[in-house]
Protein backbone atom coordinates (compact mmCIF):
# COMPACT_ATOMS: atom_id res chain seq x y z
CA UNK A 1 0.00 0.00 0.00
CA UNK A 2 1.06 3.54 -0.63
CA UNK A 3 1.44 5.54 2.60
CA UNK A 4 -0.13 8.92 1.90
CA UNK A 5 1.15 10.10 5.27
CA UNK A 6 4.76 9.52 4.27
CA UNK A 7 5.90 11.73 1.43
CA UNK A 8 9.50 12.09 0.33
CA UNK A 9 10.77 15.16 2.13
CA UNK A 10 13.86 15.69 -0.01
CA UNK A 11 13.19 15.78 -3.76
CA UNK A 12 15.43 13.75 -6.03
CA UNK A 13 18.16 15.95 -7.47
CA UNK A 14 21.50 15.92 -9.23
CA UNK A 15 23.11 15.21 -5.85
CA UNK A 16 21.51 11.79 -5.76
CA UNK A 17 22.76 8.45 -7.10
CA UNK A 18 20.39 7.69 -9.95
CA UNK A 19 20.38 4.68 -12.24
CA UNK A 20 18.23 4.36 -15.35
CA UNK A 21 16.41 6.65 -17.72
CA UNK A 22 16.55 10.17 -16.24
CA UNK A 23 13.10 10.88 -17.69
CA UNK A 24 11.48 7.65 -16.55
CA UNK A 25 7.85 7.95 -15.50
CA UNK A 26 8.55 6.04 -12.31
CA UNK A 27 11.15 7.10 -9.79
CA UNK A 28 11.88 4.46 -7.19
CA UNK A 29 13.84 5.75 -4.21
CA UNK A 30 15.36 3.14 -1.94
CA UNK A 31 16.57 4.02 1.54
CA UNK A 32 18.99 1.25 2.39
CA UNK A 33 21.49 -0.05 4.91
CA UNK A 34 24.30 -2.09 3.34
CA UNK A 35 24.57 -4.37 6.34
CA UNK A 36 20.84 -5.03 6.57
CA UNK A 37 19.86 -8.58 5.56
CA UNK A 38 16.46 -7.39 4.31
CA UNK A 39 18.22 -5.02 1.92
CA UNK A 40 20.39 -7.85 0.62
CA UNK A 41 17.25 -9.88 0.05
CA UNK A 42 15.56 -7.03 -1.79
CA UNK A 43 18.61 -6.39 -4.01
CA UNK A 44 17.91 -9.07 -6.67
CA UNK A 45 14.22 -8.14 -6.62
CA UNK A 46 15.07 -4.51 -7.35
CA UNK A 47 17.34 -5.62 -10.20
CA UNK A 48 14.44 -7.62 -11.62
CA UNK A 49 12.22 -4.54 -11.41
CA UNK A 50 14.83 -2.52 -13.23
CA UNK A 51 14.99 -5.09 -16.01
CA UNK A 52 11.26 -5.54 -16.24
CA UNK A 53 10.49 -1.84 -16.45
CA UNK A 54 13.67 -0.69 -18.17
CA UNK A 55 13.18 2.74 -19.67
CA UNK A 56 10.19 3.41 -17.42
CA UNK A 57 11.95 3.19 -14.09
CA UNK A 58 14.85 5.03 -12.55
CA UNK A 59 16.33 3.92 -9.25
CA UNK A 60 17.66 6.31 -6.62
CA UNK A 61 19.65 4.98 -3.69
CA UNK A 62 19.97 6.89 -0.41
CA UNK A 63 21.74 5.84 2.77
CA UNK A 64 19.87 4.82 5.89
CA UNK A 65 22.39 3.01 8.07
CA UNK A 66 21.09 1.66 11.37
CA UNK A 67 24.52 2.03 12.93
CA UNK A 68 23.71 0.85 16.42
CA UNK A 69 22.25 -2.40 15.14
CA UNK A 70 24.68 -2.76 12.21
CA UNK A 71 28.15 -1.61 13.30
CA UNK A 72 29.66 -1.65 9.79
CA UNK A 73 26.75 -0.01 8.00
CA UNK A 74 28.09 3.52 8.33
CA UNK A 75 31.53 2.58 7.07
CA UNK A 76 30.02 0.68 4.16
CA UNK A 77 27.95 3.73 3.25
CA UNK A 78 31.00 5.99 3.39
CA UNK A 79 32.92 3.50 1.29
CA UNK A 80 30.21 3.64 -1.36
CA UNK A 81 30.41 7.44 -1.32
CA UNK A 82 34.18 7.29 -1.60
CA UNK A 83 33.84 4.89 -4.53
CA UNK A 84 31.40 7.36 -6.08
CA UNK A 85 34.22 9.89 -6.35
CA UNK A 86 36.03 7.35 -8.52
CA UNK A 87 32.87 6.86 -10.57
CA UNK A 88 32.13 3.51 -8.98
CA UNK A 89 29.12 4.12 -6.73
CA UNK A 90 26.82 1.58 -8.33
CA UNK A 91 29.57 -0.99 -8.71
CA UNK A 92 30.30 -0.70 -4.99
CA UNK A 93 26.57 -0.66 -4.14
CA UNK A 94 26.23 -3.93 -6.05
CA UNK A 95 29.34 -5.50 -4.56
CA UNK A 96 28.25 -4.65 -1.01
CA UNK A 97 24.86 -6.26 -1.51
CA UNK A 98 26.19 -9.32 -3.32
CA UNK A 99 28.93 -10.04 -0.79
CA UNK A 100 27.20 -8.98 2.41
CA UNK A 101 27.58 -12.39 4.05
CA UNK A 102 31.33 -12.24 3.56
CA UNK A 103 32.15 -8.69 4.59
CA UNK A 104 29.55 -8.11 7.31
CA UNK A 105 31.24 -10.58 9.60
CA UNK A 106 34.72 -9.14 9.04
CA UNK A 107 34.01 -5.43 9.17
CA UNK A 108 36.77 -3.22 7.86
CA UNK A 109 38.84 -6.12 6.60
CA UNK A 110 35.85 -7.52 4.78
CA UNK A 111 35.21 -4.18 3.09
CA UNK A 112 38.79 -4.01 1.85
CA UNK A 113 37.96 -6.97 -0.37
CA UNK A 114 35.46 -4.76 -2.14
CA UNK A 115 38.05 -2.07 -2.70
CA UNK A 116 40.34 -4.65 -4.29
CA UNK A 117 37.55 -6.29 -6.28
CA UNK A 118 36.64 -2.97 -7.87
CA UNK A 119 40.31 -2.07 -8.35
CA UNK A 120 39.78 1.28 -6.67
CA UNK A 121 42.72 3.58 -6.11
CA UNK A 122 43.43 2.74 -2.49
CA UNK A 123 45.49 5.81 -1.64
CA UNK A 124 42.89 8.16 -3.04
CA UNK A 125 40.22 6.17 -1.24
CA UNK A 126 41.99 6.38 2.11
CA UNK A 127 42.30 10.13 1.75
CA UNK A 128 38.64 10.44 0.79
CA UNK A 129 37.52 8.38 3.76
CA UNK A 130 39.23 10.86 6.08
CA UNK A 131 37.07 13.67 4.74
CA UNK A 132 34.22 14.44 7.14
CA UNK A 133 32.02 15.45 4.19
CA UNK A 134 31.45 11.78 3.55
CA UNK A 135 29.90 11.18 6.93
CA UNK A 136 27.87 14.36 6.52
CA UNK A 137 26.51 13.20 3.21
CA UNK A 138 25.40 9.90 4.70
CA UNK A 139 23.84 11.65 7.68
CA UNK A 140 21.96 14.04 5.39
CA UNK A 141 20.50 11.10 3.51
CA UNK A 142 19.56 9.53 6.83
CA UNK A 143 17.87 12.60 8.29
CA UNK A 144 16.09 13.26 4.99
CA UNK A 145 14.77 9.73 5.27
CA UNK A 146 13.65 10.31 8.85
CA UNK A 147 11.71 13.37 7.76
CA UNK A 148 10.19 11.36 4.92
CA UNK A 149 8.82 8.83 7.38
CA UNK A 150 11.32 6.06 6.70
CA UNK A 151 10.67 3.44 9.35
CA UNK A 152 13.15 0.70 8.52
CA UNK A 153 15.22 -0.75 5.73
CA UNK A 154 14.76 -1.12 2.91
CA UNK A 155 12.07 1.50 2.45
CA UNK A 156 10.84 2.26 -1.05
CA UNK A 157 9.25 5.46 -2.32
CA UNK A 158 7.35 5.30 -5.60
CA UNK A 159 7.03 8.72 -7.23
CA UNK A 160 7.47 10.38 -3.88
CA UNK A 161 5.35 8.25 -1.56
CA UNK A 162 6.34 5.46 0.79
CA UNK A 163 5.29 2.01 -0.32
CA UNK A 164 4.79 -0.67 2.33
CA UNK A 165 4.01 -4.25 1.53
CA UNK A 166 5.46 -7.18 -0.33
CA UNK A 167 7.52 -7.02 -3.46
CA UNK A 168 4.94 -8.58 -5.75
CA UNK A 169 2.48 -5.86 -4.88
CA UNK A 170 5.21 -3.23 -5.36
CA UNK A 171 5.91 -4.60 -8.82
CA UNK A 172 2.24 -4.38 -9.73
CA UNK A 173 1.87 -0.91 -8.23
CA UNK A 174 4.73 0.30 -10.42
CA UNK A 175 3.22 -1.47 -13.43
CA UNK A 176 -0.04 0.39 -12.89
CA UNK A 177 1.69 3.76 -12.76
CA UNK A 178 3.40 2.97 -16.05
CA UNK A 179 0.19 1.68 -17.66
CA UNK A 180 -1.61 4.90 -16.74
CA UNK A 181 0.81 7.01 -18.75
CA UNK A 182 -0.73 8.53 -21.91
Amino acid at each position, binding site marked *: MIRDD*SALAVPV*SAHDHIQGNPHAVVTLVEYG*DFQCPDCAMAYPLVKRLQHRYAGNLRLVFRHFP*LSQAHPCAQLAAELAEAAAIQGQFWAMHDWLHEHQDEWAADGRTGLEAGVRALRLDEHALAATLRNPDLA*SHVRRDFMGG*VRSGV*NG*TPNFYVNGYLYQGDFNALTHAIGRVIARQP
Partner: protein
Amino acid sequence: MTILAAGTVAPAFSLHSTPDQSVALKEFRGHNVILAFYPADWSPVCSDQLALYNELLDEFARLNAQLLAISVDGVWSHAALARERQYQFPLLSDFEPKGEVARAYGIYDAEHGVAGRALFMLDGDGVIRWSHLLPMGLNPGAAGIVNALEALPANNIQKTLGAPATDAWEA
Protein backbone atom coordinates in the same frame (compact mmCIF):
# COMPACT_ATOMS: atom_id res chain seq x y z
CA MET B 1 -10.85 3.71 25.13
CA THR B 2 -9.52 6.87 23.45
CA ILE B 3 -5.95 7.99 23.18
CA LEU B 4 -5.23 10.98 25.43
CA ALA B 5 -5.18 14.14 23.38
CA ALA B 6 -2.89 17.14 23.28
CA GLY B 7 -3.54 19.50 26.16
CA THR B 8 -4.06 16.70 28.69
CA VAL B 9 -1.78 16.38 31.68
CA ALA B 10 0.20 13.16 31.19
CA PRO B 11 -0.71 10.55 33.83
CA ALA B 12 2.10 9.88 36.27
CA PHE B 13 3.68 6.47 36.42
CA SER B 14 6.63 4.57 37.78
CA LEU B 15 7.67 1.43 35.91
CA HIS B 16 10.51 -1.04 36.14
CA SER B 17 13.24 -0.59 33.57
CA THR B 18 15.34 -3.41 35.00
CA PRO B 19 14.63 -6.03 37.66
CA ASP B 20 15.82 -3.68 40.39
CA GLN B 21 15.35 -0.19 38.96
CA SER B 22 12.28 1.92 38.35
CA VAL B 23 11.79 4.99 36.25
CA ALA B 24 9.20 7.60 37.17
CA LEU B 25 7.83 10.06 34.65
CA LYS B 26 8.23 12.94 37.10
CA GLU B 27 12.03 12.52 37.00
CA PHE B 28 11.95 14.19 33.61
CA ARG B 29 10.14 17.39 34.53
CA GLY B 30 11.79 20.23 32.72
CA HIS B 31 12.54 18.01 29.73
CA ASN B 32 10.40 17.04 26.82
CA VAL B 33 9.53 13.36 26.90
CA ILE B 34 8.77 10.99 24.07
CA LEU B 35 6.67 8.03 25.17
CA ALA B 36 6.76 5.25 22.61
CA PHE B 37 4.26 2.52 23.48
CA TYR B 38 4.63 -0.62 21.40
CA PRO B 39 2.98 -4.04 21.38
CA ALA B 40 5.89 -6.41 21.89
CA ASP B 41 9.63 -6.87 22.04
CA TRP B 42 11.60 -8.66 19.33
CA SER B 43 10.30 -7.25 16.07
CA PRO B 44 12.86 -7.78 13.25
CA VAL B 45 15.68 -5.27 13.50
CA CYS B 46 15.44 -3.84 10.00
CA SER B 47 11.83 -2.79 10.56
CA ASP B 48 12.19 -2.07 14.26
CA GLN B 49 10.79 1.28 15.34
CA LEU B 50 12.99 1.33 18.42
CA ALA B 51 16.16 0.60 16.43
CA LEU B 52 15.38 3.70 14.41
CA TYR B 53 14.84 5.84 17.50
CA ASN B 54 18.11 4.48 18.85
CA GLU B 55 19.84 6.20 15.91
CA LEU B 56 18.20 9.52 16.75
CA LEU B 57 19.08 9.96 20.39
CA ASP B 58 21.51 12.80 19.71
CA GLU B 59 18.81 14.61 17.74
CA PHE B 60 16.31 14.04 20.54
CA ALA B 61 18.80 15.33 23.09
CA ARG B 62 19.33 18.46 21.02
CA LEU B 63 15.58 18.97 21.20
CA ASN B 64 15.73 18.48 24.97
CA ALA B 65 13.78 15.24 24.70
CA GLN B 66 14.09 11.98 26.61
CA LEU B 67 12.81 8.81 24.99
CA LEU B 68 11.01 6.20 27.09
CA ALA B 69 9.71 3.06 25.40
CA ILE B 70 6.92 1.04 27.04
CA SER B 71 5.40 -2.38 26.41
CA VAL B 72 3.77 -5.01 28.61
CA ASP B 73 6.81 -7.29 28.28
CA GLY B 74 8.67 -8.22 31.45
CA VAL B 75 12.00 -6.73 32.46
CA TRP B 76 14.02 -9.77 31.42
CA SER B 77 12.75 -9.62 27.85
CA HIS B 78 13.53 -5.90 27.83
CA ALA B 79 17.02 -6.49 29.19
CA ALA B 80 17.82 -9.09 26.55
CA LEU B 81 16.43 -6.94 23.74
CA ALA B 82 18.25 -3.80 24.88
CA ARG B 83 21.51 -5.70 25.11
CA GLU B 84 21.19 -7.26 21.69
CA ARG B 85 20.09 -4.11 19.90
CA GLN B 86 22.35 -1.78 21.90
CA TYR B 87 19.47 0.45 22.94
CA GLN B 88 20.64 3.52 24.82
CA PHE B 89 17.28 4.49 26.30
CA PRO B 90 15.01 2.87 28.91
CA LEU B 91 12.57 0.12 28.04
CA LEU B 92 9.83 0.23 30.65
CA SER B 93 7.77 -2.74 31.69
CA ASP B 94 4.02 -2.13 31.96
CA PHE B 95 3.75 -5.65 33.25
CA GLU B 96 2.05 -5.58 36.65
CA PRO B 97 -0.75 -4.61 36.76
CA LYS B 98 -0.71 -5.54 33.09
CA GLY B 99 -1.13 -2.59 30.78
CA GLU B 100 -2.15 -0.21 33.58
CA VAL B 101 -0.14 2.68 32.19
CA ALA B 102 -1.21 1.93 28.62
CA ARG B 103 -4.83 2.08 29.85
CA ALA B 104 -4.19 5.39 31.60
CA TYR B 105 -3.01 6.80 28.27
CA GLY B 106 -6.00 5.37 26.45
CA ILE B 107 -4.11 2.98 24.20
CA TYR B 108 -4.35 -0.50 25.71
CA ASP B 109 -5.40 -3.17 23.23
CA ALA B 110 -7.45 -5.43 25.46
CA GLU B 111 -8.23 -7.86 22.67
CA HIS B 112 -4.57 -8.78 22.23
CA GLY B 113 -3.37 -7.97 25.73
CA VAL B 114 -0.71 -5.51 24.59
CA ALA B 115 -0.11 -1.79 24.45
CA GLY B 116 -1.10 -0.27 21.13
CA ARG B 117 1.57 1.33 19.00
CA ALA B 118 1.26 4.92 20.12
CA LEU B 119 3.45 7.96 20.48
CA PHE B 120 3.13 10.83 22.91
CA MET B 121 5.21 13.96 23.12
CA LEU B 122 5.15 15.64 26.52
CA ASP B 123 6.53 19.07 27.27
CA GLY B 124 8.65 20.06 30.27
CA ASP B 125 5.51 20.68 32.33
CA GLY B 126 4.27 17.15 31.82
CA VAL B 127 1.50 18.14 29.40
CA ILE B 128 0.83 16.08 26.29
CA ARG B 129 1.54 18.25 23.25
CA TRP B 130 1.09 15.60 20.55
CA SER B 131 -0.20 12.07 20.42
CA HIS B 132 -0.69 9.52 17.69
CA LEU B 133 -2.05 5.98 17.64
CA LEU B 134 -1.18 3.72 14.75
CA PRO B 135 -3.14 0.87 13.28
CA MET B 136 -1.65 -2.49 14.23
CA GLY B 137 1.19 -3.44 11.95
CA LEU B 138 2.17 0.05 10.89
CA ASN B 139 5.52 1.42 11.97
CA PRO B 140 5.30 5.18 12.42
CA GLY B 141 8.92 6.03 11.82
CA ALA B 142 10.16 9.18 13.54
CA ALA B 143 8.88 12.02 11.38
CA GLY B 144 5.87 12.70 13.63
CA ILE B 145 8.00 12.91 16.76
CA VAL B 146 10.60 15.14 15.13
CA ASN B 147 7.94 17.49 13.78
CA ALA B 148 6.16 17.65 17.13
CA LEU B 149 9.39 18.42 18.98
CA GLU B 150 10.37 21.11 16.52
CA ALA B 151 6.94 22.69 16.84
CA LEU B 152 7.42 23.31 20.54
CA PRO B 153 7.93 27.05 21.01
CA ALA B 154 10.56 26.37 23.66
CA ASN B 155 12.70 24.55 21.13
CA ASN B 156 12.70 27.49 18.73
CA ILE B 157 13.78 25.30 15.87
CA GLN B 158 14.34 26.55 12.35
CA LYS B 159 14.30 23.12 10.73
CA THR B 160 18.02 22.56 11.03
CA LEU B 161 17.72 19.05 12.41
CA GLY B 162 20.58 16.77 11.44
CA ALA B 163 23.08 19.03 9.75
CA PRO B 164 23.65 22.63 8.75
CA ALA B 165 21.67 23.54 5.66
CA THR B 166 23.53 22.36 2.61
CA ASP B 167 22.98 22.18 -1.08
CA ALA B 168 21.57 18.67 -0.78
CA TRP B 169 19.23 19.63 2.03
CA GLU B 170 17.90 22.54 0.04
CA ALA B 171 17.58 20.50 -3.14
